[in-house]
């Protein structure tokens, strides 16, 4: 090492010493973070090459067996399809309904505050509570859905919603949309209120009607919000768990087993910690790819 290099290093050490309180400030966060995130990530990766039932101390090395199992696992494939179904239905629906409500609430009507609160209430309801209530609403014998659908003759036989293999997932989606509309509404409302009026004026002068103003002024200005809601929505609904746990337990016939529910079962029902870690890593990778793709969209929207 040259004398200069050593001098530079001494300089760094000196700065580090002078700024030692900075490290002190970071320490608590950094320690917790190193243990519960960084170490945890590495340990989970280590577990993907092991077989382990948590009870015994041995964790035999199994090479890529967990990965091979995963690729051939029909149920896991099913859970990916279910998760994609859930995400593909609930995220756009929640956003479209939220946008619609926000657009209407952005009109000079009376009681806007009250209406906004009412639409937002489902969002502040704990998920567990929402799931319990909706489970009852879907009840085949006494549920309100069947009552009103029968009364209005939309159906002739009571439906069993959560036990019907074709209806269970739509039912869960509907409940999740109910709970998420408030959030997208508030995000859209905030964005709507920050669109400068001049833009609308200019559009009017150019002879744009209401529809044209919506298409060419409002919607483009809302694009960052839309992308934000999409990113958050997809990340959130890829991790859907609570509703599934309470409303369907993954049934009927695995039709509502989502990825996280499947991981949960692998780990804490069948105690296959190595395999569950492998599945969790697969979920992580998918989210990374999605987020990276969306951030690229995001950046393009910023330009």
């Amino acid at each position, binding site marked *: 090492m040259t004398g200069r290099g050593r001098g530079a290093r001494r300089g760094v050490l000196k700065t*580090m010493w002078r*700024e030692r309180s*900075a*490290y002190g*400030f*970071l320490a608590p*966060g*950094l320690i*917790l*973070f190193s243990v*519960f*995130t960084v*170490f945890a*990530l590495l340990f989970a990766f280590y577990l993907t090459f092991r077989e382990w039932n948590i009870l015994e101390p041995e964790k035999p090395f199994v090479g890529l067996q967990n990965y091979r199992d995963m690729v051939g696992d029909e149920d896991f494939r099913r859970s990916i399809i279910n998760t994609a179904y859930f995400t593909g239905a609930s995220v756009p629906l929640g956003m479209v309904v939220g946008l619609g*409500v926000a657009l*209407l609430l952005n009109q*000079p*009507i009376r009681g806007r505050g009250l209406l906004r609160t009412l*639409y937002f*209430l*489902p969002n*502040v*309801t*704990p*998920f*567990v*509570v*929402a799931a*319990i*209530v909706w489970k*009852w*609403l879907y009840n085949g*014998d006494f549920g*309100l859905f069947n009552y009103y659908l029968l*009364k209005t003759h939309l159906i002739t036989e009571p439906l069993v919603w959560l036990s019907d293999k074709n209806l269970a997932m739509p039912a869960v989606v509907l409940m999740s949309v109910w709970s998420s509309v408030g959030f997208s509404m*508030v*995000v859209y409302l*905030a*964005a709507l*209120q*920050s669109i400068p*009026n001049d833009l609308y004026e200019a559009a009017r002068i150019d002879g744009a009607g*209401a529809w044209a103003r919506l298409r060419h002024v409002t919607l483009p*200005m809302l694009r*960052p919000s839309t992308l*934000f809601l999409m990113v958050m929505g997809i990340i959130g609904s890829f991790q859907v*768990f609570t509703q599934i*746990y*309470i409303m369907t337990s993954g049934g009927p016939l695995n039709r509502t087993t989502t990825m996280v529910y499947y*991981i*949960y079962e692998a780990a*804490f029902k069948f105690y296959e910690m190595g395999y569950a*870690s492998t599945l*969790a890593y697969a*979920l*992580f990778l998918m*989210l990374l790819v999605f987020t990276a793709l969306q951030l690229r969209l*995001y*950046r393009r929207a*910023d330009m």
Partner: protein
Amino acid sequence: MTAVIDRPAATAPAVPTPPRGPVWRRRLWLGFCYLVLVPGAILFVAPFAWLISASFQHAGDIFSWPPQWIPSNPTLDGYKGFFGIGQAGDIAQGSEGAWRWFLNSAFVAGSVTTLQLFFNSLAAYTFAKRRFPGRNIIFMVFLATMMVPPQVTLIPNYLVLKHVPFFGGNDVMGQGGHGFLDSYWGLILPGAVSAFGIFLLRQYMLAIPDELLDAARIDGAGEFKVFWKVVLPLCGPALAATAIFTFTYAWEDFLWPLIVVSSSDHYTAPLGLALFVVKNRTSWNLLMAGSVVATLPMVVMFLIFQRRFIQGISMTGLKG
């Protein structure tokens, strides 16, 4: 995430401009708005209304057909029964009962929020306002892990907590007992710091002019005092917003308590509702009463802090 955070201006929400054109057209348009919004709002609130109504009904009345929106025979049985869980003659005899779950939830969510506010803002301040070797690398690592879904770290964290030495009957090597599992420590510690929270606060603090801090330093304030007396007071809105979100999130978190907690004395409110009542098939009126009680703090908090809530969403999200 390219969240651009402006200092939230203290403006009242802009009142939208009325549509132009002939009066009848304006009226027709507003009429249409009400026609969509009001029934929609009723549908959105209906599940709540029914929840509240059912919580005041007798166990048998909940099953009545047609359903009763207004209890014909209102009663507090559901609430009494719910808070009586664990009393003599109950299947859960010996456990301390439902009120304990709510205290647990309040304690856990309160601790998580307090710790996060302190640790997050301390780290955010350091990242935003201090220059020291390694800052960028450490910050990048924090940022990178914002994407890590909690499910990946679930299993390792379970194991880490299980093997904390000297706790829960563990020896020095962390063997033999259950460590921090089934304890408040296990519920609180992993949530005591958040990369996302640090990121948000850092963005906010970047906007604070350095001159303010330098002035305080010249007056002889130490680094902690600068942070505590100068920076924190300027971060009120950002701290309030993150506090509300952290508390809400911790209050309704389900998966982590489900895995960490095993004895009913450590149940949080959502866990108690889900496990105890659903799995043990206790009657629905108890469940509905418990659900109302679990929702109430969230709704009250929202109504009180509504402005901040909404400000927070647009702050964490984006502008425009």
